[in-house]
């Protein structure tokens, strides 16, 4: 019987080089970017006002309202956790500032600091309880969700006697707060709300933070395999608590926008259900629900897709009864485009 011995090449020649394009395509957010482009083109054809450059401001505003919170929610999801209380925490932050300023007749900025402290505390509590009990974050934050939702209404009614906080629009510090959180300016023909600028800044910082810093590396690790991360010395608890506090910070920021954009009044029942929009943005943008994979830019693109679809249906003037059905089909299409792109990228 014959035996054949061949000497193989010493170097590993199995890897064909990948084009720059192919490498770009394998980034988590690229799929959703292509999905966003598809939606953009679709509505640009289907809806005339969508093409009007002056309306870009409206669309971006719709996206930014979800997008700002999608930033920490994406980070949190990469870190392997959920926060169901994120939506009502926004309202809690807004109410706290409004009620505190009104009840104690203090400068609005002081009330904002108090509100920030509370928002961070809520985040820290979520994170601490999660790590302490080892319960899934779904349950822990569900508890906080209900508690905050209840407190929002109960405390507002106790203090203002109604279900909305009293207006603080005539109080000291309101106008400066308004300038920072809810002003707008003209750029060419476009009216740009300042929250859009903030959103872009936040996305840039958070994306850099996730990919290029040590703690960003830890976030990937605690989401991908918390046991492994712990074994190599990553402070899993502190990272997770920090992530929840980041959600708290952004909830505060969004809450301040609401407070100042709505003339100093916050409705206590708002925010319920918003948490899912944030999660949807993150998932559409390519974050894995199970953690360890995703990107901040993806979350932003997810918010953009959601915002475009939501307003695009209105711009197209379609029968509003079908609105949700359109929304569903569009979302499915966007994510399927996302998927196709990813598969293509992997095959190269």
């Amino acid at each position, binding site marked *: 019987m014959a035996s054949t011995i061949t000497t193989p090449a010493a170097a590993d020649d199995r890897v064909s080089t990948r084009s720059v394009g192919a490498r770009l395509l394998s980034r988590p957010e690229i799929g959703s970017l292509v999905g966003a482009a598809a939606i953009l083109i679709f509505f640009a054809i289907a809806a005339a006002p969508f093409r009007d450059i002056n309306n870009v401001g409206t669309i971006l505003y719709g996206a930014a309202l979800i997008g700002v919170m999608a930033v920490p929610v994406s980070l949190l999801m990469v870190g392997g956790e959920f926060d169901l209380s994120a939506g009502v925490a926004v309202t809690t932050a807004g109410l706290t500032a409004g009620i505190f300023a009104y009840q104690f007749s203090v400068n609005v900025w002081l009330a904002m600091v108090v509100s920030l402290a509370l928002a961070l505390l809520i985040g820290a509590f979520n994170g601490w309880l999660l790590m302490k009990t080892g319960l899934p974050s779904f349950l822990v934050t569900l508890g906080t969700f209900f508690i905050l*939702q209840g407190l929002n*209404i109960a405390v507002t009614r106790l203090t203002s006697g109604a279900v909305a906080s009293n207006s603080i629009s005539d109080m000291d510090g309101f106008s400066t707060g308004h300038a920072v959180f809810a002003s707008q300016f003209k750029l060419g023909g476009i009216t740009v709300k300042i929250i859009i600028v903030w959103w872009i800044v936040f996305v840039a910082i958070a994306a850099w933070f996730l990919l290029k810093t040590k703690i960003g590396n830890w976030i990937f690790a605690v989401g991908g395999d918390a046991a492994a991360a712990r074994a190599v010395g990553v402070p899993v608890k502190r990272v997770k608590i920090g992530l929840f506090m980041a959600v708290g910070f952004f909830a505060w920021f969004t809450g301040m926008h609401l407070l100042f954009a709505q003339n100093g009044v916050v409705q206590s029942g708002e925010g319920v259900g918003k948490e899912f929009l944030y999660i949807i943005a993150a998932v559409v943008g390519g974050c894995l629900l199970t953690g360890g994979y995703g990107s901040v830019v993806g979350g932003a693109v997810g918010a953009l897709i959601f915002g475009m679809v939501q307003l695009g249906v209105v711009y197209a003037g379609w029968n509003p009864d079908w609105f949700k059905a359109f929304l569903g089909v569009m979302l499915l299409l966007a994510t399927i485009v996302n998927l196709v792109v990813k598969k293509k990228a992997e095959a190269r």
Partner: protein
Amino acid sequence: SSGGKKEEEKASGSSGNVATTPRMKVALITHSKQGDTFWDIVRRGAEAAAQKDNIELQYSSDPDGAGQANLVQTAIDSKVDGIAVTLNKPDAVIPNVKKAVAAGIPVTVLNGGLDTWKTSGAIGYFGQDERIAGQATGEKLKALGAKKVICVIHEQGNVSLEARCQGIKDKFGAVENLNVDGADQPGTQATITSKLQQDKGADYVMALNAGVALTAVQAAKDAGSSAKIGSFDMSKEMAKAVQDGTVDFAVDQQPYLQGYLAVDAIWLNKTNGDTIGGGEATLTGPAFIDKSNIEAVAKYAAAGTR
């Protein structure tokens, strides 16, 4: 510091006499979501009546039909002396209302259920006919010279809201509905803005509650549209907006009255055998409030009772 609570405390309320009839327990069961201003005023009216009549008021709500029906059952279980209930989802709730009536508990209906309250065996109805209110609004819009109206529905699938828009359409014609999420003000704002950008011919936005109306004011500004805003329902901020002229008019159905009468009717029935309305519906609206008559209403709105 200016404004704030100190400012408000300069004006303060008063309290009336309390009835000496035996303590009673009455359940007010609505289909409201939590944190809604309109229902807050309803509840306030009911509480005022309860206080006056020496009644312990138990308020509960569930937007889900089957859930609201089960709340009626819990009221029967708790052996209350009377039930005030909304019948916006009549088919789900009426079976349990009938049970309550059969158990000897007087029931009053408020806000919704104009067509069906009699079949349930209730002793009275306090609310407005939404379709008629819509039609009246349609007439008013015609009189104001509107050309194209956007009717903003803040809860898709809600019977009363749909009836209002339908009523406007009956009398006015050029009406387009727009769905928004009432629990999301900024999102509502963006959606109305985009609608006004899309439909440049729209010159009136009819909001169906006060919060949406105020948001629509901002949205019209954002869209650079000259569309005027009309609204259903009152609130403190709404009164101010009508005064300022940013909102053209409001259709008031007097929610305070609905809550008040629904509870008071039970007390009167229990203590005196009365039936308010004499077996017919008692309409609490519509009343149009605009610059001409706002002064009379504004101070009550500020107190949260209009």
